[in-house]
């Protein structure tokens, strides 16, 4: 009986994973078209191969799992965690076929970094990579930002349904509309609106800084995808430094700041509720921590005379900090310069910014402004309790799309998520130290991977030990899905074993 139940569960999970994989397969069409337009037969063959293989695997899984059952909350959670792993392996095929990666593990690392909008990369000789592979890498980051499961829901689910588990599993717990399907579609509408406007703006900038029309368009599209989804990939190995343009950097700055905002906030502002922007707990939290950390970064950099003037201090110091805080990972300096020039104070400020991260229900990572804000409000509440008379009940309010009262359950779940973040961050740091890297650099790289940032001090390279690559892949995955889906999957796997034992007994 028990065994039958878990078999049923497994088939439901396979069915949905298969369908999500079909969605990933169809994404191959975009780089395939890029290759065809550029008459690049070799890349076109690679993407057709990837399209076919992923489609076959997806179709096979959904056939295997097809049993006519509907998915519940638990299935949604486990499907998300599982499908992210399967999608990672499948989407790495074009990377591998391109010959620009040292091993399949490196390919998988790059894809997970893309899907989680991290931006760490193990690609080799990026400056000679085909346009279609760059299209694929940036598309992965763009889709990953909105959520691959959210994409599949928006693409395939015809009728209005629930499926809240799928949605929450992907780290987005804000419902813009009562139905998840509507919400998924709204998220995609917002992103596509910005994609069109942003690419156009960026294209003009690209042409003005000396790129030709064709390459200007591609770079505009890719850099927009990368900044908006707070990703951090770039088509050239020097990242933002390649363009040598303050204007270019300013425009990316605007995109990744907007991209790090909550989709619910976007929806509110698009509806005309502009005041929300200034009163929202999340934006307040972001503004406060950003100001404080800017001060510390400037302090550290000025004391060591790192930059010759104010323009450089803002373009390098503030840009890197903002890129860290929004968990983007675009860089206007070389990775080594963090280690050799910045000094401990500025480096520490960037590390803290990477841990805090952007907004909940956005494309950003980290433990999110909302949680930082909630924990701060809880601290205020407890202090007021301590100071007040024992009989009075202290009610703490905060503004988040309307006035809300701070509840114990919110504080508890915020604290737990932050605690788990700290846990895997510590694990990543330990792994870095075990691999022989200096302490501060290990802290930095682990914070970057866990918070889905992508800034690097140079640890993430093809030559780093395989176990460290695996630890970072895990941290990116767990950090992006915010643990719930992963805990649910662990529970599910444990129940499978228990079920198996009971059936045998």
């Amino acid at each position, binding site marked *: 009986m028990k065994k039958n139940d878990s078999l049923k569960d497994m088939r439901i999970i396979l069915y949905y994973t298969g369908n999500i994989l079909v969605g990933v397969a169809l994404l191959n069409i975009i780089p395939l078209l890029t290759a065809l337009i550029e008459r690049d037969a070799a890349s076109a063959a690679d993407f057709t191969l990837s399209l076919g293989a992923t489609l076959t695997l997806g179709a096979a899984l*959904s056939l295997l799992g097809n049993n006519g059952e509907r998915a519940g909350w638990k299935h949604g959670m486990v499907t998300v965690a599982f499908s992210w792993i399967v999608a990672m392996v499948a989407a790495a095929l074009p990377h591998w076929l391109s010959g620009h990666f040292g091993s399949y593990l490196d390919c998988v690392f790059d894809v997970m970094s893309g899907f989680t909008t991290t931006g760490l990369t193990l690609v080799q000789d990026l400056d000679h990579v085909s346009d279609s592979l760059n299209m694929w890498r940036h598309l992965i980051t763009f889709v990953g930002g909105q959520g691959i499961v959210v994409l599949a829901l928006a693409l395939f*689910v015809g009728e209005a349904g629930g499926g809240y588990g799928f949605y929450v599993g992907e780290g987005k717990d804000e419902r813009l509309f009562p139905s998840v399907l509507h919400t998924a579609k709204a998220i995609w509408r917002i992103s596509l609106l910005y994609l069109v406007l942003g690419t156009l703006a960026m294209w003009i900038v690209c042409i003005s800084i000396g790129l030709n029309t064709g390459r200007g368009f591609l770079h505009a599209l890719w850099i927009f995808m990368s900044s908006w989804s707070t990703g951090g990939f770039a088509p050239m190995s020097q990242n933002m430094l390649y363009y*040598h343009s303050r204007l270019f950097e300013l425009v990316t700055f605007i995109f990744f700041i907007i991209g790090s905002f909550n989709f619910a906030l976007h929806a509110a502002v698009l509806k005309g509720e502009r005041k929300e922007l200034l009163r929202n707990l999340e934006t307040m939290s972001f503004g406060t921590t950003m100001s404080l950390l800017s001060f510390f970064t400037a302090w550290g950099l000025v004391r060591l005379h790192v930059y010759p003037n104010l323009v450089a201090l803002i373009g*390098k110091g503030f840009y890197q900090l903002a890129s860290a805080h929004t968990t983007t990972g675009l860089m206007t*300096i070389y990775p080594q310069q963090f280690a050799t020039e910045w000094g401990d104070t500025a480096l520490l400020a960037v590390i803290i910014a990477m841990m805090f991260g952007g907004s909940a229900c956005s494309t950003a990572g980290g433990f999110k402004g909302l949680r930082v804000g909630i924990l701060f409000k809880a601290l205020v509440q407890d202090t007021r309790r301590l100071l007040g008379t024992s009989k009075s009940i202290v009610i703490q309010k905060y503004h988040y799309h309307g006035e809300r009262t701070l509840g114990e359950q919110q504080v508890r779940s915020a604290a737990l998520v932050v605690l788990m973040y700290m846990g895997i961050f510590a694990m990543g740091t330990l792994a870095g130290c075990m691999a022989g890297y200096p302490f501060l650099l290990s802290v930095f790289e682990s914070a970057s991977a866990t918070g889905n940032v992508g800034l690097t001090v140079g640890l993430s390279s093809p030559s780093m030990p395989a176990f460290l690559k695996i630890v970072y892949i895990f941290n990116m995955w767990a950090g992006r899905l915010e643990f719930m889906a992963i805990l649910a999957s662990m529970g599910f796997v444990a129940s499978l074993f228990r079920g198996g034992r009971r059936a045998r007994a």
Partner: protein
Amino acid sequence: MPGLKSWIRRGMEMLLCVALVFATAAQAARTEGDAPPSVPIAQLVARAKEYDGKILTVEGEAIGDLMKRGNHAWVNLLEDGVAIGVWLTEEQASQIHELGRYGNSGDLIQVRGTFHRACPDHGGDLDMHAAAIQILRRGSKKTVEAKPGRLAASIGLCILGDCSRSYGGAVSGKLRAPDPPGI
């Protein structure tokens, strides 16, 4: 008498010092006139503080784009996986013909110029300002051939994937919407 002796000795010492200073200055001027030391780009980036403000030579493949800015231009040079931006005059930039991209190798270029760890004129960028450039080797285009095996496999897999997908579709109809949350 001892006063004169020590005065002569001090005079001799001073003369020697002056001669030494002149000799080193002359030596320095000579190395400056000749080709200054060529430094690998990776080493420049890794030890930027050491080389800051120095006149030196780098070599690398011109990659990507030649980005015109007024009567100057930027080009990035790549050597052993690390690239650096070089600030050129229009005239210098016009010597570059091939840029390294997918399927292309760019011109191999030698640049003599001033290295900046954090350039005050360019927003703190780590860069080189070229005094002179020389083309060491012209780049070339090569076509990347498609592998026939991959082509055949890809077509086969697409047909297979599509067939099983449409078979699955025929069995189950449209993807079922998941249940509303049951908690």
